């Protein structure tokens, strides 16, 4: 038996699980309020743009999205297995590619802001 390489992904999964547990419900509340037009002053271009244009804001956004993606991707890989799909390698390629794509897009978008 050899030591596994799973720690790469599991590390991101665990970090993502923790970060999403703390921040995602509140973020969803904000987008929910925005969707409900609960308060027209929130989720405005100016406020968000200001945050995203700030270097630390960029870093925070990138960090949150990065670990959320990889958390979800890794757990999805396990879940697909739990549902009986016995194609772990292929599933891993798909879900990690999705996460990679999301990461790349985030990077591009952030650099353009």
């Amino acid at each position, binding site marked *: *038996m*050899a*030591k*596994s*390489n*799973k*720690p*790469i992904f*599991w*590390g991101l999964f*665990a970090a993502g699980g923790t970060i999403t547990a703390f921040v995602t419900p509140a973020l969803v509340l904000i987008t929910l309020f925005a969707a409900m037009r609960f308060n027209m002053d929130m989720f405005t271009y100016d406020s968000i743009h200001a945050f995203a244009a700030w270097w630390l804001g960029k870093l925070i956004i990138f960090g949150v999205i990065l670990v959320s993606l990889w958390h979800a991707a890794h757990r999805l890989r*396990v879940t697909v*297995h*739990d549902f009986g799909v016995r194609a772990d390698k292929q599933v891993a390629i798909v879900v990690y590619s999705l996460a990679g794509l999301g990461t790349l897009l985030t990077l591009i978008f952030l650099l353009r802001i």
Partner: protein
Amino acid sequence: MSELQQRQIQLEVLRYNPETDTAPRYQTYSVPCLEEWVVLDALNYIKDHLDPTLSYRWSCHMAVCGSCGMMVNGEPKLACKAFIHEYKEGQIKVEPMANFPIERDLVTSVEDFITKLASVKPYLIPKEDKPVSAGEFKQTPAELKKFKQYTLCINCMLCYAACPQYALVPEFLGPAAISMAHRYNQDSRDGGRDQRQEVIASDEGVWECSFVGACSEVCPKHVDPAGALQQIKVASTIDWYKEHLMPWMKK
């Protein structure tokens, strides 16, 4: 102290004899149970009075030898700690431990677990050599407490019967074997973690675990194997990042 209450219970037992059966079948026995009895007492009643051919393992009758693990109404239990008074219905279903091959009636095959337990080097690999004549290794109560709960495993294998990942991937080392490795890793006298990592940090080791947590829920001795596995994952991940991203940190 009140008089002892008695109640007639229908015990539905899964039976299988490889010499006469092609597949397991249920057999129901009507047993006059005292309320203070455990399911094992009911099985012993059957064995002595109704059907001497029923086979099951048991010994201590005090939840420490780990022989009598079985499924009681679908839940992994020690038969000697499954109290009749907790089953309000008139019927109790008793089956051999899930996830293990049935050898005969309620007797399952133990070999897979024993092999896996042995593979994790579940013994002290001393950090330093010390002859017996030099006396004991010192260990403070706090150092003892750090690993103590993991020493309480009685190898009853109920955690394997509860673990769906073991059911789906039989190569998985499983809860009890890995938490026993953790027990030694956490022991202040031990220096064998690196040797054990080769086995427990493999794909068939902790990484097959998805933290269902069922093992810890069913453990009759309140060991927390699920916790041990997560702690190993955290430590192994830190190892990996140190090794690959900060190679200069390597010893």
